[in-house]
Structures are given as structure tokens and as C-alpha cells.
């Protein structure tokens, strides 16, 4: 598997196929028994702190306000807080969180919490972001809104994203490429040839539906 700079790549697989393990390996929480992990053209030994990781749950600290939660990675890396405050308030604006700086996580909706967690991941300042089913716990309407929002935002972000999902529609809509994790460690790669900028209405177009069909076939044939 490889991911190019600025790419949005999804990883799909049945539960238990090792998606989250893959992410923990890349993030450096686990070490591989076999194989190697290369980041930025070099074999990476210590990966902790080099990759932005957003776990399935939002994991916002309930005793911190939104602004303080977003500040967390900056505190950890011991950068100057003052230098980052403008960057954070700009980020909050862009993420539709303006006016909620002083709110506590329990006062936010599920979609907003995920956006705060996403912004926190971006504030780590890392090039590569690992997103582990970030929209998995949201209802379908909120999820749909998050897709439109992320598609709009994506062009300016200039980050490289690896994205775990089990939602085929989501994978096609957001990704440049899709990796399928199949049984016995087999991997299949798929390119999504739909040009950007994309809009979330795309899911009703014939080429999109054809793509989805193909993906489903691939998964079921394996079984």
C-alpha cells in the first residue's frame, strides 16, 4: 500500500479485517511483526508524534472548552500558545464552530464534536492524517452534511488523508483511491476517476452508482 502527498485514500474492510490495527501501526502505537512502514521517503522507526490520528470516538476532554480542546496538541508539542491562537480562531470559523469557543463538549451536537476533534487533529500540524471512521457514529443526515462540508474544505486543507470507513458511498464520494482489505491479507486497489471539486449530490449520478456496484461485487466475490 502507498499513499501520495495530498491524496485522500480510503480503507474499506469487514470488521475484524484489521483496519484499526493498520492505523495503530502507522501511528506508531503498535510495531509491525512483518513488513515496513515508510513515511516521507524514509523508514520510520519512531512514528509517535509524526502522524495526526483521529480515533473513532471524538475523545474530547469533557472538562475543557472547545478552544482548550483544540489547543491540546499545541500544549503537548510545547509550541507557543499565543502564536497559535489566531490560527485556532480561524480554524474554528472555517469549521463552523465560531461562537462555541467557550462551550463544553457536552453542549455540542454529535456532528460538531466530530468537527472539533477533526480540527484538533489538524492542529497537530502533521502532513498525514489518519481518520478512523470519523463519521461512523453520526446519523445519516448529519453524516451527509459532514460530507458536503468536508468536500468543500478539502481543496484548501492540502493534507494527506487515510480514511477508514465501512460506508461504500462515503468512500467513493471522498476518496481519490480506495483500498479493499479482503480475506487472508489480500488487498485490492481501486481508483475513483470522478474529477474534483465534487459535490455530495454526486451519489445519484450513474457513473457513481456503477462504481458502487463494482465495489460491492468485489467484496462479495471474495466471499
Amino acid at each position: 500500500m502507498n499513499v501520495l502527498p495530498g491524496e485522500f485514500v480510503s480503507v474499506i474492510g469487514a470488521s475484524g479485517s484489521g483496519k484499526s490495527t493498520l492505523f495503530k501501526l502507522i501511528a506508531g502505537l503498535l510495531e509491525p511483526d512483518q513488513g515496513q512502514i515508510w513515511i516521507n521517503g524514509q523508514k520510520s522507526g519512531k512514528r509517535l508524534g509524526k502522524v495526526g490520528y483521529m480515533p473513532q470516538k471524538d475523545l474530547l476532554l469533557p472538562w475543557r472548552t472547545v478552544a482548550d480542546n483544540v489547543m491540546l496538541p499545541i500544549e503537548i508539542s510545547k509550541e507557543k500558545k499565543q502564536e497559535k491562537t489566531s490560527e485556532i480562531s480561524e480554524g474554528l470559523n472555517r469549521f463552523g464552530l465560531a461562537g462555541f469557543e467557550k462551550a463544553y463538549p457536552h453542549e455540542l451536537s454529535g456532528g460538531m464534536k466530530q468537527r472539533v476533534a477533526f480540527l484538533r487533529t489538524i492542529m497537530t500540524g502533521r502532513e498525514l492524517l489518519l481518520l478512523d471512521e470519523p463519521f461512523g457514529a453520526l446519523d445519516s443526515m448529519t453524516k451527509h452534511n459532514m460530507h458536503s462540508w468536508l468536500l468543500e474544505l478539502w481543496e484548501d486543507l492540502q493534507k494527506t488523508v487515510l480514511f477508514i470507513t465501512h460506508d461504500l458511498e462515503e468512500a467513493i464520494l471522498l476518496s481519490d483511491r480506495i483500498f479493499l482489505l479482503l480475506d487472508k491479507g489480500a488487498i485490492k486497489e481501486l481508483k475513483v476517476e470522478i474529477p474534483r471539486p465534487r459535490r455530495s449530490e454526486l451519489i445519484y449520478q450513474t457513473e457513481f452508482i456503477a462504481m458502487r456496484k463494482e465495489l460491492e461485487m468485489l467484496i462479495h466475490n471474495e466471499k
Partner: protein
Amino acid sequence: MKNRFKTWAENYGLFLLVVVLLISVWEWVVKQGFIPSFILPAPTSIWQSLMENRQLLLEQHLPATLKEVLLGFILSLIGGVIIGVGMHFSRALEKVLYPFLVISQTVPLIAISPIFIMWFGYSIWSKIAVTILTAFFPIVVSTYDGLKTGGEEYRELLLTMGGNRWQIFKKVQVPLALPVLFSGLKMSVVYCVVGATIGEWLGASEGLGYFSRRMSGNLQADALFAAIFLLSLLGIVLFLLIGLAEKLLLKSVKNQKGSKRK
């Protein structure tokens, strides 16, 4: 204002009603002569005795007990938190200390207390030693368990941000541990009163425990009950104070619980 009174009455009204009822029945039963007053004195005579002895009780014995309780509690708090944190950071320390902690709680307090009297004499330190023995255990356990509660996912998240052990401890584990620690403190402060009283029973020259032992020797049940009343009042007040500190310190966490209930 009216609303606040209403919620207050809703919360405590029934309890107060039962208390008033119980005391009335108690008074009536004793006054009617069903129970001799040297076995169970009437509430009014307990109150009378409290008033008669108020100078002795409030100016000598209550402060003496309070001093033992507070010193014992503070020392338990410092020692208990240090041991709990130490056990959190070092598995070896945990493996060595945990059995000792459990043993310290299975030894009967009444049996071990004379040893303290032997070591420390009738000074305040023998009482404080008994107090610490009863009070530090819940603090150690709540510190240790609190630091372990549900922090694993947060730990991983901070690790991926490049956080070290100390940062994870400070930013996630301590805040997560505080509510659990406070539960331990509430238990501990009540045990402190029990410990100090037992210490005074076994050997002291002042304090509410000492006073109640002397009164029970003299068969002065009303004075004995007055001392017991003050002791339980002391426990309640200290318990409420810890609860208040908890409320002030953990405001945002409490808020969260409140809104979830809605």
C-alpha cells in the same frame, strides 16, 4: 427564592419529617417509662446535658477530636495520594505494596491500637496513628483506581500527538481521577472521625471519645449520647465540606452530568 425552597423541601422534606417523627416517638416512649432513662435517655435530656456540658464539650473535647481528625486526614491525604500515584507509575511498587495495604485493613483496629498507645503513649500521635490507619486506605485505592479509569483511549491519543508519560498523567489521568478521588475522600473523612474516637477510647486525656468513655463508666447516658451526637455531627459537617470542595473544583464535569440527565 420560592422555587429554591420548593426543591429543597422536595429533597429533604421527607427525611426531616421522619426525623421529627422518630424523635417524638422516642421522647414519648422514654417519658412514658417504657424504657429506663439510664438505658435510653430522652432527646430533651440529651439536649439538656449538651447545654450543661457545652463549655467542656465545645471548648475542650470537640477541638481536641477535631485536631486529631484534621491532622490524621491531611497526613492520610498526602501519604495516600503519594502511594497511589507511586503505585500507578511503578508496577513493582504496586506488586509490593498492594498486599500490605490489604493486610493493614484486615488487622482488627481494636487489636492494633494498643500497640500505637505503647509506641506513642497518651500523646496526640497515638490517636493520629489510629486515624491514619482507618483513613488512608480509601484514599490510596481511590487515587490508584481513579488514575486507571478509562484513560486508555486518551492515553493512545496523546501518545500519537507525541505526548510523554508525564503530560498524559497531568492532562488526562489526573482530571479523570479527581471524581473517584473525591468519593474516596468523603469515605475517608468519615472514617477519620471513627478512628480518632477509637484512639481516644483506648487512651487519651481529652477528646469526645475520651469524654464518652468516661460518661459510659459513670452510667451518664444523657452525656454519652450528647458526645455521640457531636461526633456524628462532626462527621456530617466534614463530609459536606468535602462535597462542597468537590462541587467547586469539578464544576464543568458536574455540569455535564446534569445536562445528560435532561
